[in-house]
């Protein structure tokens, strides 16, 4: 469990952006793993199984608010969506290569949590979970175009947040 707990917790917390909720989700993941302990004990795919369960549980948790989120997201017009976002923000070449790596990582994680839910979730699924646009659209039950737009907005906001704190 100690070998996987950080990975499981990270998967959950990047999606739900709430430490307490991520801890509850991680706990559920390990309780499910305990039920399937005999199958997972010597399985080389145990890590993948735990990560997948963590992702599913986190998305299930978020789906409680899905309707509200979708309604909000679809009614936000472009002008509002781009408020306070520097359209010319770019990712610094030295980002992630600074000497104080730990604080740099914390800064990026903090910026991720500041993204709106409708942009953070598809962005996390794309960049951290290796899911394709189509898979994300199927998982979140929304259109391919909306996923692409939300991920793009998320990247732009993330770049803006990171460039503002440089």
């Amino acid at each position, binding site marked *: 469990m100690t070998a996987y707990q*950080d990975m499981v917790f*990270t998967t959950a917390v990047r999606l739900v952006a709430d430490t307490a909720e991520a*801890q509850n989700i991680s706990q559920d993941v390990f309780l499910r793993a305990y039920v399937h302990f005999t199958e997972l004990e010597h399985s080389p795919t145990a890590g993948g199984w735990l990560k997948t369960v963590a992702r599913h549980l986190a998305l299930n948790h978020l789906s409680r608010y899905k309707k509200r989120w979708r309604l909000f997201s679809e009614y936000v017009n472009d002008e509002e969506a781009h408020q306070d976002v520097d359209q010319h923000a770019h*990712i610094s070449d030295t980002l*992630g290569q600074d000497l104080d790596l730990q604080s740099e*990582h914390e800064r990026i994680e903090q910026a991720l949590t500041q993204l709106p839910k409708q942009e953070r979730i598809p962005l996390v699924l794309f*960049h951290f979970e290796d899911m394709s646009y189509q898979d994300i659209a199927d998982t979140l039950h929304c259109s391919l175009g909306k996923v692409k737009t939300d*991920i793009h907005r998320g990247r*732009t906001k993330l*770049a803006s947040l990171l460039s503002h704190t440089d």
Partner: protein
Amino acid sequence: MNPSSDMDSRSVQRLHKVLRALPNRQAPKQLTQHVLQTIEQQAHASWWKHAFRRWPRGAQTALISACLIALSVITVWSPWRFSLLHIPLHATDGVTQLTPLLTPLDTIISWQSALLHGLEKVPLHWLISFGSALGTLYLSIILLASLITQRFSHAHTIGRST
């Protein structure tokens, strides 16, 4: 809006690289403790509180047998019980003064008849057996669990007193 207009593919690749290079966040220290506590609590819970598939083999067999026996008994007895509902109409002829008192009963009987006439196409044994099976299953679980719990707690008390 063209998604590629504001952020070129080079920036996207760089962002992807930076995000993928992020290490895992450290899980709270109490996570392991909470998981182990919950597992321990579940392990000490009574066996009948677990899912049916995790019950002892003997208990599973006993419950299924009890259900089958109860189902058979009820299926055999059901035609006799159903015959009680067929009250002849001339039976109430001599008691017209009691009509106000009998009206609710009459209404219930007429509703039952209507319902049963509607269900005529379905074999009666099937309907009664289905309802009985559900009820029996529910009652058997509660009865069996309470009996065994009582026995275990009695044995535990004796063990402690000795």
